[in-house]
């Protein structure tokens, strides 16, 4: 199926020039065609989707009230719960786990008429940046299947980029939605911490993660974000402070955009060039670009890995073979059940993060690293707070490179983790960060930029991104 905007498809559905059944069937055909190579989905519920599409068509035909995204097929990252649907987190540990309830974010989409096609592949428990730590195999980038789709929401991004669905939900802890969006040429947003309910998102790092939409345009992203955002009695951190999102125009004259030149050295020259060209475009649109200072990406990376691993060690302690998922057989005592279930149920990356997190929370690690990481988090929050006294948003790369070949992935753990530095800022400071493609590297792979804003300033980010997208669409 060709990538088409939600708004455009909705108009066709309302005018009955296209049926939800035809649209869903087109997505299913794309799934059948792409999946043998791309591996974006862990499970697809095609029959259920077609039944729901037929019900949407009946509503439209009879002139009944319909939702904002009635009849639009979507996919959900496999760490987000849907009642009665298998939810694995890409892990052997949860291979046969069927969720007894539906996440608020998914419920919001279903109540607006969206059609769930299935659950998408991801790095195990969200730990990775190439969707290659999943126990269901790696997801390939549909733009070049020898390259990574990014991670951990690589399945969601690949599903949208290959036309297997119209939009998808991912989640972002330290760039897990922004990176795949950038690598697959999509629009992704990590909302302000507290914008979207995390109820039903299987926790990896509770103080950092958010559920995120992945779409092919800025307006689509704004539409889905608006449906997702809001208060939730099941998640007290979801405070619903966002104003109504209507992108009326692309006028960004007078806006001030911060550009932290000192940290751009961490990116490859073609990524740096893309950022500088984007800054020039923003200036040509009437915005003012101001140089700003940020703490180093290494500091953000270190703080991110300490905090997220500590929280992961705590959150994943529940997976012990007793209440959830994989349980080892032929063990003789309860300690053996815990240990053997975890040894066999978790993959290497998850074990690595649990060990790091456990160390960071130990007596020695707590004082040497965990408390200092929390201090670094506060310093980063303060640095942005100072920047936002003057600026409306900050322009940054998403990653130091565009999508790389699987064979070119570094064997050095620190090199891999350091690629998350640009994304870690917004995660640690709880800020909204929107990514959109603004260039391509020498291999034709998209380069994404990200715009960071004040807490709950998604509207400003969407307006700026829409202005940039409009320029990109012009010949």
């Amino acid at each position, binding site marked *: 199926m060709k990538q088409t905007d939600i708004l455009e498809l909705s108009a066709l559905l309302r005018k009955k020039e296209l049926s939800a059944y035809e649209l869903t069937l087109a997505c299913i055909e794309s799934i059948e065609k792409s999946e043998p190579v791309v591996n974006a989905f862990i499970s697809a519920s095609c029959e259920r989707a077609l039944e729901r599409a037929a019900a949407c068509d009946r509503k439209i035909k009879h002139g009944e009230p319909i939702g904002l995204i009635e009849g639009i097929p979507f996919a959900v990252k496999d760490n987000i719960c849907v009642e009665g649907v298998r939810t694995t987190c890409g892990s052997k540990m949860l291979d046969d786990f069927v969720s007894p309830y539906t996440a608020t974010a998914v419920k919001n989409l279903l109540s607006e008429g969206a059609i769930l096609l299935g659950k998408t592949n991801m790095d195990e428990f969200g730990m990775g940046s190439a969707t290659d730590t999943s126990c269901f195999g790696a997801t390939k980038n549909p733009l070049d299947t020898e390259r990574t789709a990014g991670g951990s929401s690589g399945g969601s991004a690949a599903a949208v980029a290959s036309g297997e669905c119209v939009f998808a939900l991912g989640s972002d802890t330290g760039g897990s939605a922004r990176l795949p969006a950038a690598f697959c040429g999509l629009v992704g947003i990590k909302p302000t911490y507290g914008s979207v309910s995390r109820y039903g998102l299987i926790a990896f790092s509770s103080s950092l993660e958010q559920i995120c939409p992945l779409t092919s345009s800025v307006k689509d992203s704004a539409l889905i974000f608006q449906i997702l955002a809001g208060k939730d009695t099941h998640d007290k951190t979801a405070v619903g402070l966002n104003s109504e999102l209507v992108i009326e125009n692309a006028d960004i004259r007078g806006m001030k955009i911060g550009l932290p030149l000192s940290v751009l050295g961490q990116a490859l020259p073609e990524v740096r060039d893309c950022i500088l060209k984007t800054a020039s475009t923003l200036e040509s649109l009437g915005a003012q670009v101001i140089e700003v200072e940020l703490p*180093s990406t290494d*500091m953000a990376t*270190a703080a991110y890995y300490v905090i997220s691993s500590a929280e992961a060690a705590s959150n994943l302690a529940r997976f012990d073979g007793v209440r959830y998922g994989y349980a080892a057989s032929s063990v003789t005592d309860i300690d053996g059940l815990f*240990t053997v279930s975890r040894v066999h149920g978790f993959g290497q990356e998850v074990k690595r993060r649990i*060990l790091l997190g456990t*160390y960071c929370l130990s007596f020695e690690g707590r004082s*040497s690293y965990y408390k200092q990481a929390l201090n670094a988090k506060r310093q980063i929050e303060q640095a942005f707070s100072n920047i936002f006294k003057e600026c409306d948003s900050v322009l940054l790369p998403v990653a130091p490179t565009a999508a790389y070949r699987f064979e070119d992935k570094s064997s050095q753990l620190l090199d891999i983790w350091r690629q998350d530095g640009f994304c870690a800022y917004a995660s640690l400071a709880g800020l909204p960060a929107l990514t959109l493609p603004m260039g391509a590297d020498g291999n034709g792979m998209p380069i994404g930029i990200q715009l960071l804003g004040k807490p709950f300033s998604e509207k400003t980010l969407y307006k700026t991104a829409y202005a940039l997208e409009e320029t990109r669409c012009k010949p």
Partner: protein
Amino acid sequence: MPLPYINIEEIEGSAKLSLSREERQEFSEELLRFAEFANILGEFCDSDPLEIRREDNTLVAREDIPAERHCSAREILGDERVVNGYIRVPLTVEEEQ
């Protein structure tokens, strides 16, 4: 900052994991490399170096503090109370209350 001593067997026990010898070697090295990298946090951050905590009727504080601090716990409390890098100060009855 000196690299910490990391007891991987103790950590895997706390994490309810059991590693093979090869995994133990690999993860130990990775943890140390990360610890070295994460020392950057100490360079930038103003943590509480005294880290005073209470154990029963004793105040316990670290003696090894960053140089930029005006004075160390050792200077305040005296060398004789330093044991294995920690200063232990018994509380009086009034202080306990």
